[in-house]
């Protein structure tokens, strides 16, 4: 135990003295969360729209105010005729135009069907759909608030119901994805590079000649990264709760337990890579190309697995990140308990045992 502690202390010195590693270790999760949170988001905020108000009554004013009050739209100006709408679109400054018909309030009160027209710039179809949905929600809200007795449906009422993510926020999707990616990168790459570095500098031989058990060499090299990764899990969770306003719905303990399991799976991959390679560059390349890329492609975080051809769907099953991604989404976003994720957890556990088994066997063979 004392031997183990001296080893772990030494490992921490290595990590803490290497500025570049430190930066990757603690800077990357923050940078990724911020990039995904604010730059690469599928949310569309502050879209410029115009309103052609033919009603000019109180209800139409209220509706426009409500639209403006949302974070998604910004009414640039009110127009007087259809020809102006087209001009605005041609200038390319607006994404959407809303046309409120004459006698809006009167017709609403009478319970007649009111036809509001939404004109979308569909040159970017995804954005157009998203904006259409946002507007649909606002209109439905408006109706519920001001004309609770009016019969449903109104002219523009979207029937789509967004489970778990009613505001169609991007964060619930990418936070688990970023967690999987960051842990994968840190545990696999850093561990394999750290172990291979000892081989390169020749210190591995010194360690193997010492009474310190080879298997302990491996574990004590991996141990600091387990702790550092847990720090990263915490920083990602803090950022997502306090910066992205994404609450943790499920058990925090379960989330940490599952993260620890995934970290151990990744560490085993890192160990396996380090046992098979002799140079830091090779270890890094394998980690990046062989591990990070599949994690990105097959976790379901960027590309939906259901839409992939069957062979790729099958391949996706051997990517640990996929299972972790499912677990984090279930626990963190949906607030589900262990009973609904035990299968995924069992798969990760099995992968860990297989990977560790192979690497320990290979490690012994190398010694002979």
């Amino acid at each position, binding site marked *: 135990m004392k031997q183990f*502690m001296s080893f772990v202390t030494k490992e921490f010195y290595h990590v803490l003295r290497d500025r570049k590693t430190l930066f990757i270790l603690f800077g990357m999760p923050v940078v990724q969360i911020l990039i995904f949170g604010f730059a690469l988001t599928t949310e569309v905020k502050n879209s410029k729209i115009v309103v052609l108000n033919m009603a000019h009554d109180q209800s139409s004013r209220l509706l426009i105010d409500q639209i403006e009050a949302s974070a998604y739209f910004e009414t640039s100006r009110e127009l007087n005729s259809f020809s102006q709408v087209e001009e605005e679109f041609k200038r390319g400054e607006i994404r959407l135009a809303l046309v409120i018909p004459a006698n809006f309030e009167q017709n609403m009160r009478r319970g007649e069907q009111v036809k509001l027209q939404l004109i979308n710039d569909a040159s970017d179809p995804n954005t157009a759909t998203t904006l259409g949905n946002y507007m649909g929600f606002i209109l439905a809200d408006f109706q519920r608030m001001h004309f609770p007795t009016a019969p449903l449906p109104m002219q523009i009422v979207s029937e789509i119901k967004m489970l778990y993510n009613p505001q169609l926020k991007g964060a619930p999707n990418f936070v688990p994805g970023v967690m999987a990616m960051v842990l994968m990168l840190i545990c696999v790459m850093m561990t394999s590079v750290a172990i291979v570095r000892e081989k390169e500098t020749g210190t591995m031989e010194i360690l193997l000649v010492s009474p310190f058990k080879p298997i302990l060499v491996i574990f004590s090299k991996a141990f600091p990264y387990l702790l550092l990764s847990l720090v990263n899990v915490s920083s990602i969770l803090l950022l997502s709760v306090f910066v992205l306003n994404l609450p943790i719905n499920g058990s925090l303990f379960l989330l940490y337990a599952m993260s620890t399991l995934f970290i151990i799976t990744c560490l085993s991959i890192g160990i396996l890579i380090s046992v098979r390679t002799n140079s830091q560059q090779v270890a890094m390349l394998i980690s990046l190309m062989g591990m990070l890329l599949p994690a990105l492609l097959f976790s379901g975080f960027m590309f939906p697995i259901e839409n992939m051809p069957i062979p790729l769907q099958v391949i996706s099953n051997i990517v640990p990140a996929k299972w972790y991604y499912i677990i984090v989404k279930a626990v963190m976003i949906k607030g589900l308990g262990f009973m609904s994720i035990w299968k995924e957890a069992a798969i990760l556990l099995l992968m860990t045992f297989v990977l560790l088994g192979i690497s320990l066997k290979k490690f012994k063979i190398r010694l002979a």
Partner: protein
Amino acid sequence: MEQVITAHKLSKKFGDFIATNEITFSVNKGEIFGFLGANGAGKTTAMRMLCGLSIPSSGEATIAGFDIYKQTEEIKKSIGYMSQRFSLYEDLTVRENIRFFGGIYGLSIPQIKLKTEELLGSLGLEKEANKLVSGLPLGWRQKLSFSVAILHNPKLVFLDEPTGGVDPLTRRQFWNMIYEAAAKGLTVFVTTHYMDEAEYCDRISMMVDGKIEAMGTPAALKQQFDAPNMDHVFYQLARGAKRKE
């Protein structure tokens, strides 16, 4: 005389290639034993077997009385090892390196503290104690490296080309350290390419193509091969080698 290393017909094969071919020798306690040979002669393989890093294909050997097949744990506790490549961590300070190696050899914290002060004093490294090893001159690093290798008072220390790349003066100082340690009863097993260093050894063996072709004191070998110095002895033997690097 107590024998610290005994090897009897020790061999290591890699497929068809016989790296070490039935070597037989013994080393006495407190002796400085030079293990010489050209590159590729099988020195490293032999040394790895003796350290317990590699399992022999056949033959027997004991280190400090322990069997190299069955008692590798005991062997590891009674040997020290310093390699031609660096044995120290460059991004750790002198003190941290001593603490780390003391730690993995199972020394207690008070023991490590005591040893550290002792070592820093004898090497004159008090001022550099908290500096990174990467900032130390090569010669000092090697002396430190040797001291760290014998920190846990082993019976036997393996030095694998310990003086590669240092100037003659530093090499001389390094050898003085070896003599001092040997005088206290430490057995030293050293490989080297410098023939002047071979002269410093009590006894040497010459390996050619996996076999020990000659063994004895430097004086006896010079006489046997009718050579003015060890360089000539080495040339005569190595010229007959079939294996090239």
